[in-house]
């Protein structure tokens, strides 16, 4: 297990390096002079040169990458070109908002999606099963920013139940929670459908296995068979799906944060890209990739924890 974890973490670090190399290559390949884009066509050559130097773009690309990682190892992700504030501070300010949004959405999706999937299996072939199926496909089909815009119209503009923008007052948990409802629901809705479908599909497969017949032959109640004997196996593909899906959750957070003008990583990165604020882009991408890689590793370790057969494969 330990050797497996070490191997996975090593691979994760390699992915980080590759992603950053790809990012630098992309910056190098993007047409147009970043300084001109950022400062406007009437900027003086001295000002442009100064900006290029501050972004480090006058160095060869490989040197920029080496410098970036050397600084990153000491916790220095560079400085915002405009405000001159450390990128690490900017990211750390924005990150909690996005993580709270993403994790809340995910938790809601799991808490609703998994029981819906189980219910579908317990009532298979009935109207309830069919209704859950139609509902799931329906919510999967609607993009999260559409949900965001319509819920904004309904709950914030027409009904005035929830705040339209922002992340709530600092230090006021209730106002923060109120501001979280719509963005989280917008992201979670589609995932409820995904998770319900996924749980139903893998559960149906598990329910046909002989050990379920054994459990039935001992007269165990159906809810116990579903929730203990089948779910522990059927949840494994769902964990992989959710770990991979977290990337897409965080990227839909970009849209949703834009709709609700919510401070967060999404807003930070879109603003930075549009102003060619490269140090901020690089720093943010590094942190997001690191989070994504850690979650994937955590999911694999969790699967190994849940399935003793997987555990033994890694041990041996």
């Amino acid at each position, binding site marked *: 297990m330990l050797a497996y974890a070490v191997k996975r973490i090593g691979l994760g670090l390699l992915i980080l390096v590759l992603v950053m190399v790809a990012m630098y290559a992309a910056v190098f390949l993007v047409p147009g002079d970043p300084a001109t884009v950022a400062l406007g066509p009437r900027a003086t050559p001295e000002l442009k040169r100064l900006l290029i130097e501050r972004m480090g773009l006058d160095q060869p690309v490989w040197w920029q990458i080496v410098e970036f990682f050397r600084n990153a190892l000491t916790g220095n992700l560079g400085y915002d070109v405009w405000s001159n504030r450390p990128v690490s501070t900017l990211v750390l300010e924005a990150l909690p908002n996005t993580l709270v949004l993403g994790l809340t959405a995910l938790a809601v999706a799991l808490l609703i999606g998994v029981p819906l999937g189980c219910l579908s299996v317990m009532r298979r072939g009935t109207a309830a099963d069919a209704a859950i199926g139609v509902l799931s496909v329906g919510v999967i089909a609607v993009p999260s920013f559409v949900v965001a815009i319509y819920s904004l119209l309904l709950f914030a503009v027409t009904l005035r139940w929830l705040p339209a923008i922002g992340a709530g007052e600092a230090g006021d948990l209730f106002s923060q929670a109120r501001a979280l409802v719509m963005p989280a629901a917008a992201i979670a809705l589609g995932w409820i459908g995904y998770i319900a479908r996924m749980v139903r599909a893998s559960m149906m497969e598990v329910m046909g296995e002989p*050990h379920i017949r*054994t459990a039935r*032959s*001992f*007269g165990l109640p159906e809810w116990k068979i579903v929730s203990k004997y089948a779910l522990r196996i059927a949840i494994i593909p769902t964990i992989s799906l959710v770990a991979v899906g977290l990337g897409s959750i965080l990227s839909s957070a970009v849209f949703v944060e834009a709709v609700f003008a919510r401070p967060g990583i999404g807003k930070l990165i879109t603003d930075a890209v549009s102003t060619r604020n490269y140090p901020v882009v690089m720093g943010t991408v590094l942190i997001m990739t690191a989070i994504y890689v850690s979650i994937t590793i955590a999911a694999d370790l969790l699967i190994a924890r849940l399935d003793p057969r997987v555990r033994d494969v890694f041990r041996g």
Partner: protein
Amino acid sequence: MSGSLAASGLSVRYETPHGSVHALRHVDIEAHPGEVIGIVGESGCGKSTLVTALANLLPANARIDGAIRYNGVDLAKLDAHRQRLLRGDEIALVGQDPMTAFNPVLTIGDQLIDFQHHRKDFSRAQKRARIAAMLGRVGIADAERRMRSYPHELSGGMRQRVAIAAALLTDPGLLIADEPTTALDVTMEAQIIHLLRELRREYNGIIIVVSHHLGVIAELCDRVYVMYAGEVVEGGEVDAIFHDPRHPYTQALLACDPARFHDRLDRLPTIPGSLPSLTQPPPGCVYAQRCGRAFAPCKTIAPPLVKLTACHAARCHAVTP
């Protein structure tokens, strides 16, 4: 608690998109406490459907006719909830394949504790103690450690011992072993048969053993029912069936048993032909197409059950008492 079991006129058909499959037709069997009953027949003869019906585990597309009286109660008429309460309490099943019979992500002990869920009178600690004692009784050394093992950490023979222990833990009045040795190798098979023989001495409920292996039946059972194409074609005491088989199918089946030939033969005898369609069962005798002794009425008139002695009967036009 143990009572008598009697299935009478039991028919089971599966409704499929391609029509009804008549898996079991007018089956009559009976069993009394302390008896070991064998059900023998080739693949697809309805053995598994019969025991699945007895254990109330038929799938949703199965339609059941006739009666299964156990302890004076008709199991076929019980609602799903009452059936569930009998399973794992009065009726226990040992499955065919020990490799897949247990949940792979739960420990043996965890599952065996759950399987005693009807016994509300025992605490968790008492249940663990019963498991340890029962595992010892079925010949598993180091029971405490085995309870913490996962199924894949045990060999096939050991898993089948655990499956038998699990069934016995529920103190069933009716213990059904569905092909208990089919998935095991010869050495393991001998050990499991030995274990079942030991158990029958101390057990006073009904044991039903299903097998296509004549040797297993001969070693374990008091009485045997021979099945063919969803019907019981002959039934009687083990001695009568093995030494004085009357139905042509039973005779052919015994003639094909490889264990009867001590010398190596070039070819083992076989029964020519194949099973009749279960979607459209023949109007006459189910064995008529393959029977060497078939005559005029066999193809058109279903043969009655002919009583040969007090407990030996065969369903054939050609036999007389």
